[in-house]
């Protein structure tokens, strides 16, 4: 097992290197530069722009810049943001807790809805409950988050005036602070969570249906086991394998933030950092965020593989 993990990790290194080369080249070739705002400003002489470009190494050839980046990265130096002139890791760590809180809660909400609803719907296929769950799931994932987000804002902030729609770092501590933090997260968490729940429900339901018809389930029932026990112990455990894959592959998204939703509610998360850095052509930040993202995808793929073996011992590690 540990040998398997080690082997997988060894394979991960070259693929991450490959990913970093691709990312770097794409970013270097992308149009625009971080000092675009200076270009239209008559106060800023061209020499200063040129000096900044040289200082930040923007005039070096791509391969040199990549090697610099790689060497620095190997020593744990993530570089600094051209726009903020702050270290990139500081910038990311500043944003990470908010992203984990908001996106994490929404994933949790999605799971709490999707698993019971999906399982229950699968046990009674084509019943009224199943039909309703399906209808809502289809509506749910057909509506993009930017639409539901604005809809929520119009209803709950503008019309009813119940919830704030600007997510901000409230100063303070204690119970009132916690309540305020929860209150302002309600809308984004709902928007994201319901969207995720919709597709996940469909997934859980079909995974359950695949298993529920297998012979060993009929055998279990024939032995006189109760319905609940059959579903939970025999069906769910096996049906969860593809679901685990789905969840594991969605974990990087929890860290990566939800770009659209973060923009709408002004949530200071990784997603909004990524989008504003892309707009500002702040390459070191874009590079770092996307690279972290790539690492997470690789890591969670590995975790999913390990979990398969635990859920279904027939899948052995080789």
């Amino acid at each position, binding site marked *: 097992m540990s040998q398997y993990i080690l082997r997988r990790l060894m394979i991960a290194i070259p693929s991450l290197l490959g990913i970093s080369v691709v990312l770097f080249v794409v970013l270097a070739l992308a149009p625009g530069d971080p000092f675009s705002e200076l270009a239209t400003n008559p106060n800023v002489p061209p020499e200063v722009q040129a000096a900044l470009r040289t200082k930040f190494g923007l005039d070096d050839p791509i391969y040199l810049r990549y090697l610099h980046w790689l060497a620095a990265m190997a020593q744990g130096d993530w570089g600094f*943001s051209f726009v903020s002139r702050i270290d990139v890791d500081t910038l990311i760590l500043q944003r990470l807790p908010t992203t984990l809180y908001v996106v994490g809660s929404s994933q949790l909400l999605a799971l709490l809805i999707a698993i019971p609803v999906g399982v229950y719907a699968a046990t009674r296929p084509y019943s009224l409950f199943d039909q309703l769950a399906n209808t809502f799931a289809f509506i749910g994932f057909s509506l993009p988050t930017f639409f539901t987000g604005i809809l929520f804002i119009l209803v709950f902030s503008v019309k009813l005036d119940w919830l704030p729609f600007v997510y901000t770092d409230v100063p303070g501590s204690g119970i009132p602070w916690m309540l305020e933090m929860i209150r302002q997260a309600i809308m984004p968490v709902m928007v994201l969570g319901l969207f995720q729940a919709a597709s996940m429900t469909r997934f859980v339901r079909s995974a359950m249906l695949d298993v529920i018809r297998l012979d060993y389930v009929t055998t279990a029932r024939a032995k006189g086991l109760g319905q609940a026990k059959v579903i939970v112990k025999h069906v769910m455990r096996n049906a969860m394998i593809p679901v685990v894959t789905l969840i594991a592959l969605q974990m990087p998204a929890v860290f990566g933030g939800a770009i659209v939703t973060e923009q709408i509610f*002004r949530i200071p998360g990784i997603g909004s950092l990524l989008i504003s850095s892309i707009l500002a052509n702040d390459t070191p930040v874009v590079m770092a965020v996307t690279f972290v993202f790539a690492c997470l995808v690789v890591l969670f793929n590995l975790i999913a593989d390990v979990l398969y073996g635990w859920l279904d011992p027939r899948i052995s590690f080789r």
Partner: protein
Amino acid sequence: MFDNNLRGMIDKVKDGRMDRRAFVKRMIAVGLTAPMANQILAIGGVAMAQSPNPYKPTKRGGGGPLKLLWWQGPTLLNPHFATGTKDQDGSRIFYEPLASWDVDGHLNPILAAEIPSIQNGGLAADAKSVVWKLKPGVKWHDGKPFSADDVVFTWEYASDPATAAVSSATYAGMTVEKVDDLTVRIKFKDPTPFWANAFVGAYGCVIPKHLFAEFKGGKSREALTNLKPVGTGPYKFIEFKPGDLIRGEINQDYHMANRPYFDTIEMKGGGDAVSAARAVIQTGEYDFAWNIQVEDEVLLRLEKGGKGKTLYAVGGDIEFIAVNFTDPNTEVDGERSSMKTKHPILSDPRVRQALALLVDRDSIKKVIYGRAGRATANYLNGPEEFVSKNTKWEFSIEKASALLEQAGWKAGSDGIREKDGKKLKLLYQTSINGPRQKTQAIVKQACQKAGIDVELKSVVASVFFSSDVANPDTYAHFYADIEMFQIPMTQPDPALHMRRYHSRNVATKENKWQGPNFPRWVNKDYDAAVDAADTEIDPIKRADLYIKCNDLMWQDNVMIPVMHRLAVEACSNTVRPALSGWANQTDNLQDWYRET
């Protein structure tokens, strides 16, 4: 004649035979505005007035929180690194200049004890030096005293090329010396009519020597104070998250009586302009939102029964269509739009004039800009003393058609004009931005009616406005026939604004397209006028020179002005901000209060 009259009047004010207000009133009557009249008085040797301050609170603090929404959040807090107004606005909460432009466009002392004038010995008659007296007893947020050393250091810091400060142009070409602890003298190489540039406004913020001394030049990025500003401003720094949030608290030691009013300040970033307007005007979650360039129709709808309103500040920002004088489709020595070429169609002044006649400012204002724009024929729209009265604009498809006819462009079978078998076809580019694409459509329609086939092109703003040498789609490369965007006027003096189109500033491959004269227009009279204005200390002659520059651009139709744009801000009904079209929105933050 006007010249002599004015001189007489200035003398009268000096001798006390005419009061300042009467002078300003008469100036307004002849078409000038108060800021201009005051600037004339100042340079004419009369000390500058300060506008009566409407500030009401009678004690410091007690105003609760002030919540500001900047839809592009500040990304750094060193005013000398600020890449755009958002950063200047953020830094300005904590740092202060010697003086700033107030609501009426008067120079208002902040860290200065008084505004230099000829009377108080501050201004030299030859305009080659200025003496600033500093306010005594001012403290940095860390308790250290503020002194002349800090001012001198700020000049050293910003003018050092290795620091790569964006304010370096402001501080180059001068020396700053300490006279005593509370007096500094600025010496200019040449007579400098616009002396109120260094240490005034956004790039004028003074930084503490004791915290930045080690981080001058090449080490400028490493200063911890870049992230944790220690200034003299009305609010002290608490927290900064780039692009997201700035928090500050009241400075109990602030050097102005009864100020500031608010106990804490929060500047939240992110999102978009429409939702920022909504959070201020409709739901009242925030007190003030910056730069609400949203269609007027949307704002009017939000304002109905809302908790806030829009405010407009008049500056000199201009949205225009620039005409390419070189040929974008012919390559010479690996360079398109080369100075060695002439535009095959647009080098004919009649065609350019026809184009100018095809921009329907009235419709553009009505449909797009509403209260936020003023139709204009001028490139230079303020301050009033510099605004030409000789120009006018007109929208007429008939006249445009007649001009094109005259120029030999005859209508073809498809309605598009041709000459020597060549179609009259123009490529019209701009950045991607709702109002701009709508303006493009309006102009294209009028052109079509006059027989010009206009092809529209829109480029992502981050590319269009970049200084990327390798990208052919930037505004400076100008590989199109006409292009449209806005140039902000960052200070109430036209020198920088007008110097851009001097022929030495033509954007070429040689200067990596860093020259700001992108229409590649060369006019000897213009060059001469700009050069003369740079050192002209007689304010009236100087204003005349800039008016001449503007008129030359108008006659040649180098820039077809579309809209004089106003700054649009959203503000809660109770907050009383102090906004000036000539300053950053946070420049007079110490004077903001809430009417309860």
